């Protein structure tokens, strides 16, 4: 056997080193994301929405939250009409004389903010709970997972309604309500992928090297089981926005003075029968575009991240 001792042939590197941010795989993934025209359009739409949201005060011709900036004289003007001081209402005005275009732009910003913040918070809570349940097991796992079942067992809209009825209106409270109903989704997914990671040999090796449970959990198991949860999160942003719009439409979401898309739709609802369709219609279209783009991108991301389907 000693005669076989030869210069090691397996020393040749298998792959040439690539900087992490620009691997061919990653470039291919982005390429895959961009290729389909519908996804391309969604990406552009999201980009435009985000950019307008960031530099809104310069773009919007009116501050829809400033009640002194508009006049009741302008109420319910149809699209393309002009105000008495020469301003053009591209998408018309609502019942208080608010410029619909400005209101929609501000409303989108609220929607996006609520979606992103609530998803991020729910993600953090859900991932921690799922990870702890999977790693510690036993009674703790049973208790946490029964809690998850409990939360998922209720219709989310009902829980959010009851919660908001108790604590009142406000953007922060809406975010809290959405987090309360959504963290359980992440916890369940995280637990199952952490359970399968936990049995791999590198985790055994980490225990064998005397690492503490916390280190094994957060440095070894978590990074390897996050991908499924992250894909879910992209889709959940859209559902968080939908939930916010629904709550606002039902009158328990954001305050009337800071209308979000859902509240704008609700406000216009009263005038629908009298022919002022634009007050509900255009915010509805904006909501549709926002959610549709988020869903398409999230769905495509899932396909792109799955090596078996690429």
């Amino acid at each position: 056997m000693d005669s076989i001792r030869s210069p090691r042939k397996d020393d040749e590197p298998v792959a040439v080193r690539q900087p992490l941010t620009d691997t061919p795989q990653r470039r291919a993934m982005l390429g895959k994301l961009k290729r389909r025209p519908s996804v391309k359009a969604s990406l552009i739409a999201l980009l435009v929405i985000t950019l307008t949201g960031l530099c809104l005060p310069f773009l919007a011709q009116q501050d829809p939250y400033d009640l002194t900036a508009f006049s009741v004289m302008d109420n319910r003007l149809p699209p393309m009409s002009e105000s008495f001081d020469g301003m053009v209402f591209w998408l018309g005005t609502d019942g208080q004389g608010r410029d619909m275009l400005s209101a929609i732009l501000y409303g989108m910003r609220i929607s996006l903010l609520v979606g992103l913040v609530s998803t991020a918070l729910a993600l953090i809570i859900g991932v921690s709970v799922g990870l702890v349940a999977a790693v510690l097991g036993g009674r703790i796992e049973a208790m946490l997972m029964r809690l998850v079942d409990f939360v998922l067992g209720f219709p989310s809209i009902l829980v959010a309604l009851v919660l908001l009825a108790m604590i009142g209106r406000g953007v922060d409270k809406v975010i809290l309500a959405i987090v309360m109903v959504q963290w359980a989704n992440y916890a369940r997914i995280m637990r199952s992928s952490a359970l399968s990671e936990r049995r791999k040999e590198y985790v055994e090796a980490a225990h064998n090297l005397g690492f503490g449970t916390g280190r094994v959990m957060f440095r070894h198991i978590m990074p390897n089981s996050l991908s499924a949860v992250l894909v879910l999160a992209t889709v959940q942003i859209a559902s968080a926005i939908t939930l916010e719009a629904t709550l606002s439409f039902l009158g328990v979401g954001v305050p009337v003075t800071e209308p979000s898309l859902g509240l704008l739709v609700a406000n216009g609802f009263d005038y629908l029968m009298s022919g002022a369709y634009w007050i509900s219609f255009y915010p509805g279209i904006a909501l549709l575009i926002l959610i549709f783009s988020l869903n398409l991108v999230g769905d495509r991301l899932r396909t792109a991240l799955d090596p078996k389907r690429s």
Partner: protein
Amino acid sequence: MMDSQQTAAGRTEVTSVPEDPILSMRNLSRVFTRQPVLAETLLKLLGRTPDIPKLRAVRSVDLSVRRGEVLGLVGESGCGKSTLGRMMAGILPASQGALAYEGAEVAGLRGTALRDFTLGVQMVFQDPYSSLNPRQRVASILAEPLKVHRPDLSRAEIHARVDAALAEVGLDVSYRDRFPHQFSGGQRQRIGIARALIVEPRFLVCDEPIAALDVSIQAQVINLFLDLRRKHNLTYLFISHDLSVVRHMADRVAIMYLGEIVELAPTAELFADPKHPYTRTLLEQIPSVRNRKRSFSAVKGELPSPLAPPPGCPFHPRCPAAMPQCSVEVPQKRQIAPGRTVSCHLYDKDQIST
């Protein structure tokens, strides 16, 4: 090695502990079972015992590993080799029995002593593809144990140690910033060995470390194991189902069947004169150039289910030398020569007695 066995010639006790064991097991067993489901818990409350199947992966193993030796552990897949190895490395707790490291019971170890055992007994895993964290770079894999256990080391010292560990297992130092997926199986196994060695263990449990490698690379890794053993005075438990590898590496060989050690002997003696019928069947199947053996017959039948082991001797349904007694009575472990034990009714009268 042989000398120590010769001096033990007069010894009579079957479970005599050889001199200077680094790790010794007494009656070590491991049972796998599932959690009772809700209905079964309720049954228990009503006073009835539900029938939850118990898998006895390792059944009452007495074994001592001597300091500095290579102990080969051989058996079919599913016989409990890996479970025994994991218990020895402290990854799996034992269901019954005791494990002693450097003379002290592992179950009673706390604090520094427990850490000494954990780090002193390291494991090299079978599958080089799942035994490395895919999201850690090589340098981070090797540096992490030092960062955790040696806070006194500076970053430069850790850096130097990682480089030394890479060089030691024959990997280029420039590989430190790569991820595991950028390596071949043989290189990954070298990283796994470096990770085990960086905490300066005394005892290495090698769980089929070459089974997943290409044949051309197996020899290189085996030679690496032998080099490292010389350099660091390591003791190995070398789990394998490849008898020729075990013959090349091991000082003593333990043959395992259905969770039990059925034969234990010095390597040369075992290969020259296998006693247990199971060992004989295994040895007959080694391909050889000399006798130009062309036809091979697998061991008859399959490994019985460890959930329902056969009564009597666990090997009797497949044994060519089975006697009526074998299906009734469990054979006891007997010492039939100095340093050799076997559990088989064929040798009932051969036991060395006082």
